[in-house]
């Protein structure tokens, strides 16, 4: 059996989306900045895509900027808010310890410039509260940037409340919604979101295209300077095929959120129940306040990479930590942020189901994970120490999920 269960890392482009992109490679290939018909046709399609994306987010078309992905959108949002704040002498930014690196590393770059960054602690359930954000806001706070759903453990932050707190304080609020947009309904006005990032490849759109929503009135700073594309705020000939593909994928995803969530919920329950039977294992992130396609576990006594490689041999594609940190030796900063000790943070597994997942697949995942965990524990000296009592267990033998 083959089960691709790493949809939080990336998704397959849906055939419908491929179909939608094709004409923009070979037929409507004009440069949207060109004045003749082939160019103007491209321009029309571009602006129509902008309207469609805006509608889904509850934004105005003028508030939608197309980027090369979630990372670029995160970078531009944060840098723009920093520059706006700077002009008013505000050089403090609030975020959390478990943001994506596109956020954290951009904040680090700003710290080198003299910005002060407060990274909020995350509760052990993987959530920060609006109250905590409120308490962290200062006179000189230029930006609050907090992700909507975490990419590793899938926990959902109280974005609307955080937005309200920021609005009241007059602080710009950005949310990285890359992992949320296809799982949760978003309305930027209702939720008081000033800026928001999206990446197409997380919901069956193509890689290399994303959206930055920025509320009217927020003047963006260019990350890429040059031509007058995107109202002068993002230079580069527009990736029209990609933009159209993203738009179609987004509409499709959002139209099926409730339906998919209902389905995911059952599979999630089954997965969590099944994996909880593995002794000395524990779910990471809140049991309920999480994206319904995400399940993330830590297993005592084993290491994540060997776990996932052996699962791959069984046809199960899942991840340990996130794709982005796979080259790194440090355990996931997300798991450390929710208080997992290093010992178990090394032994995590993220399962992110696709919309076509079945009960059989879930059962196969449970069976495969159980087998591999048992096998690896079989010759893990760390596990040996835990069993013999030489080292204390971290988890209870059976956690109540």
């Amino acid at each position: 059996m083959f089960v691709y269960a790493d949809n939080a890392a990336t998704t397959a482009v849906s055939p419908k989306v491929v179909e939608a992109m094709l004409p923009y490679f070979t037929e409507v290939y004009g440069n949207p900045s060109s004045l003749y018909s082939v160019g103007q046709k491209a321009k029309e399609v571009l602006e129509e895509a902008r309207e469609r994306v805006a509608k889904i987010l509850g934004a105005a078309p003028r508030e939608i900027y197309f980027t090369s992905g979630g990372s670029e959108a995160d970078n531009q949002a944060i840098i723009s808010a920093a520059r706006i704040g700077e002009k008013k002498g505000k050089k403090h930014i609030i975020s959390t310890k478990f943001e994506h690196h596109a956020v954290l590393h951009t904040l680090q770059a700003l710290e080198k410039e003299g910005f002060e960054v407060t990274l909020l602690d995350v509760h052990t359930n993987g959530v920060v509260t609006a109250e905590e954000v409120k308490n962290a806001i200062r006179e000189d706070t230029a930006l609050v940037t907090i992700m909507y759903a975490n990419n590793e453990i899938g926990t959902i932050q109280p974005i609307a409340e955080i937005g309200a707190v920021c609005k009241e304080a007059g602080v710009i609020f950005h949310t990285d919604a890359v992992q949320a947009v296809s799982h949760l309904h978003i309305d930027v006005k209702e939720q008081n979101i000033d800026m928001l990032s999206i990446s197409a490849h997380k919901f069956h759109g193509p890689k290399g295209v994303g959206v930055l929503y920025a509320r009217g009135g927020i003047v963006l700073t260019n990350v890429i300077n040059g031509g007058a594309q995107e109202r002068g705020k993002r230079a580069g000939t527009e990736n029209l095929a990609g933009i159209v593909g993203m738009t179609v994928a987004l509409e499709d995803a959002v139209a099926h959120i409730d339906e998919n969530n209902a389905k995911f919920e059952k599979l999630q329950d089954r997965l969590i129940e099944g994996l909880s039977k593995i002794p000395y294992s524990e779910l990471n992130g809140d049991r309920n306040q999480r994206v319904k396609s995400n399940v993330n576990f830590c297993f005592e006594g084993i290491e994540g990479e060997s776990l996932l490689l052996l699962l791959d041999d069984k046809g199960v594609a899942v991840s340990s930590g996130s794709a982005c940190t796979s080259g790194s030796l440090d355990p996931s900063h997300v798991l450390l942020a929710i208080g997992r000790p290093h010992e178990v943070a090394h032994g995590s597994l993220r399962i992110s189901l696709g919309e076509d997942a079945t009960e059989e697949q879930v059962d196969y995942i449970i069976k495969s994970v159980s087998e591999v965990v048992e096998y690896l524990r079989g010759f893990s000296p760390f596990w040996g120490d835990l069993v013999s009592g030489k080292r204390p267990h971290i988890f209870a033998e059976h956690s109540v999920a």
Partner: protein
Amino acid sequence: MALYSEKVMDHFRNPRNVGVIEDADGVGEVGNPVCGDIMKIYLKINDDKVIDDVKFETFGCGSAIASSSMATELIKGKPLDEALQLTNKAVTEALDGLPTHKLHCSVLAEEAIKSAVKNYYDKNGIEYDPKDFPDPEVESCHMH
């Protein structure tokens, strides 16, 4: 350009010499769970100071398991002197290479063996130069 060479994947998937030697003559353990890898080596050494048998237990990533497996293969049946000559480079080469950020796994394997030999020396009152052996106390994660 795969993550690991075929040799690594083979030793990872079918690790040689996995297990425990109950009446081992030398046991060595290096690494720690905080760093994400522990290797434990069990040696059976005969009167000619030849390694009759070797087993390992490893907690760690694919290359840690493969390095342990390959290292045990390389010293099995070898005189202790020779086993002590085993370098992490030899382990890496025998595995057809390791990704740069995984090279420390082969270092761990080398050190685990040395540590097991040291344990044997200690038990049997054989003198040695401590400088030739890793000092597990000063280990910090992946600083090799």
